[in-house]
């Protein structure tokens, strides 16, 4: 319990810092934010209105507190380009991005775990060395390069899957997964390589423990040793990295959603940046950063639940 409380305090502190940084985004704009927000308008009316709307004459901490209050009540402002409330756009786009993220994590783990199990059974064997080398090369492929190649191979040459667009999951689950297959594979490739390398190393280390030798000596089948004894203790670093990698994946969706023209959170962010539409950008960054912090918080707890040693070691420290 003490561990959870400590982590909660940390979580609140980090979230406050993150919200402050997102808030600073507008403040740090060179010159007067109001002028920047009214880049298109020619008269001073817009600037005046913006100044009043954003209360730019108040001191910074006051404005931050007010902004935080607005955010807490769900008011993230409106977009300058289409006058749509930012919160509505985010609500609409968040599920799409979440589906891509989960889909690619499942794909990556679904491929990496079996591969790691096969490789670790005969460490140093042909399969082990071959798969390690191939995955190392895979890591060197930037995701937008992989996306380009996949689009060339599947939709363009083979006529399989779609290169653009998205079907909502609630409308038609199967078609939805089909429409997101290429984006998810693109994101999963590098993750898969990381997971496989990590899980393989941990499995090999676990398989050298004394209790594994003991289990073997008792005459337990290799399969049972692998799944019953070695699997769970080897998953700890994998779980941590899954959490950490969500950040990289979210960064990846920025590009991938643009390449595959999927209207998710990533494309919304990039469109806001390209359109110099700062209030939606602020909202998007806030949602992404808080989502990332929350995921890592959940992973920390899960990690502690799996391994009692962490709970005690960290709580005491």
């Amino acid at each position, binding site marked *: 319990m003490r561990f959870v409380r400590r982590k909660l305090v940390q979580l609140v502190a980090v979230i406050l810092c993150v919200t402050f940084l997102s808030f600073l985004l507008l403040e740090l704009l060179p010159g007067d934010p109001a002028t920047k927000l009214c880049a298109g308008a020619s008269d001073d009316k817009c600037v005046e209105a913006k100044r009043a709307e954003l209360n730019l004459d108040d001191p910074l901490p006051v404005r931050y507190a007010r902004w935080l209050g607005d955010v807490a009540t769900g008011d993230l402002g409106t977009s300058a380009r289409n006058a749509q409330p930012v919160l509505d756009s985010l609500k609409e786009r968040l599920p799409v991005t979440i589906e891509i993220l989960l889909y690619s994590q499942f794909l990556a783990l679904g491929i990496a775990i079996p591969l790691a199990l096969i490789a670790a059974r005969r460490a140093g064997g042909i399969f082990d060395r071959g798969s390690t080398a191939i995955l190392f090369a895979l890591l060197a492929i*930037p995701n937008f390069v992989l996306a380009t190649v996949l689009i060339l191979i599947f939709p363009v040459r083979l006529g399989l899957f779609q290169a653009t667009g998205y079907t909502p999951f609630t409308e038609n689950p199967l078609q939805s997964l089909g429409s997101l297959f290429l984006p998810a594979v693109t994101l999963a490739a590098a993750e898969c390589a990381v997971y496989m390398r990590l899980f393989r190393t941990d499995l090999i280390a676990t398989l050298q423990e004394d209790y594994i030798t003991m289990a073997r000596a008792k005459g337990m089948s290799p399969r049972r040793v692998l799944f019953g004894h070695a699997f769970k203790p080897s998953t700890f670093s994998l779980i941590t990295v899954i959490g950490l990698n969500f950040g990289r994946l979210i960064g990846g969706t920025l590009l991938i959603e643009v390449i595959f023209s999927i209207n998710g959170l990533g494309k919304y962010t990039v469109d806001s940046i390209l359109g110099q539409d700062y209030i939606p950008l602020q909202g998007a960054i806030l949602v992404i*950063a808080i989502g990332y*912090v929350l995921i890592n918080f959940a992973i920390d707890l899960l990690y502690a639940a799996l391994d009692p040693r962490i709970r005690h070691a960290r709580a005491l420290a």
Partner: protein
Amino acid sequence: MPAPSPNGPAPDSVFASSGDLATEISRAADADVATRDPLHNLDPDQVEGERAGKRLGPIFWIAVGVFAVIAIAAILAPWLPLKSHTVPVGRPSQPPSSQFWMGTDSLGRDIFSRAIWGGRVSLQVGFASILFGLFFGGIVGVIAGYRRGRTETVLMGAMDVLLSFPSLLLALSIVSFTDNREWWLVSIAIGIVAIAPIARLVRANTLVYSQREFVMAARSLGASTSRIIFKEIIPNVVFPVMSYAIILVAVAIVGEAALAYLGLSVRPPIPTWGGMIADGRPKLENAPWISLMPCLVLFVTVLALNLAGDRIREYFDIKEGGL
């Protein structure tokens, strides 16, 4: 049981029946001395590497060679007999041929010379951003690792907040502040992103070395803090951090290409690999080489840097867990 040899002392004969055990123990003790006693070898990493028969190996040298070719071509671009990289030199969308080694793009510009010129931007940004990150991340990491206590909590807490923004998003937001996107501005944007991971790595290494006997010795001799940091700690931390920095350069190059793909790196007409890939996207069906050629160049560069960095890192044996 063999007779005890006359000149062998008594304790030796105890191990005579199991000679292996004796050698094992002495070897283990030697290893312990080697790791525990820095006075006996000033650079334990290197000595251990040699004992295990570690070599950089042919793959490393091939990777270095490939990267050197790309880098030299990029550096010498203004003096090489290349076709123009900004104006059309042939018919648009021509496949690779003996005249246009990588074909021409949708405007009829030579992809080969554009790829080489694009390499200038990629390498400039790749190295400049990591140097920027090394400088500031290094300062933060050394101070946090050496001073410990409250300073460390505050500094590393700030790094954690920086890390809670996905890196590409952070770089994008920084770049979005300005319309004037010179290569050094892009470098600073990516360099800021690199500060936090480098600070963590430097701190982890500083922690290890500031506990070592030679630091304690220097301190007891009355050396000032700055002397200890500059003469005792930094020279030891530099090598492991540099080998990791090679991989970070590859990451920075990919980051620049990603920004360029979104049109947020240096402005045209200066070619960038990411921009070239994005240009070819609508033409993927009829003229795939417009995208694929810069893709290939980017992939080869990143792979070469990754391979070289990975080998060097293994050579210096840095634990990934410390990151």
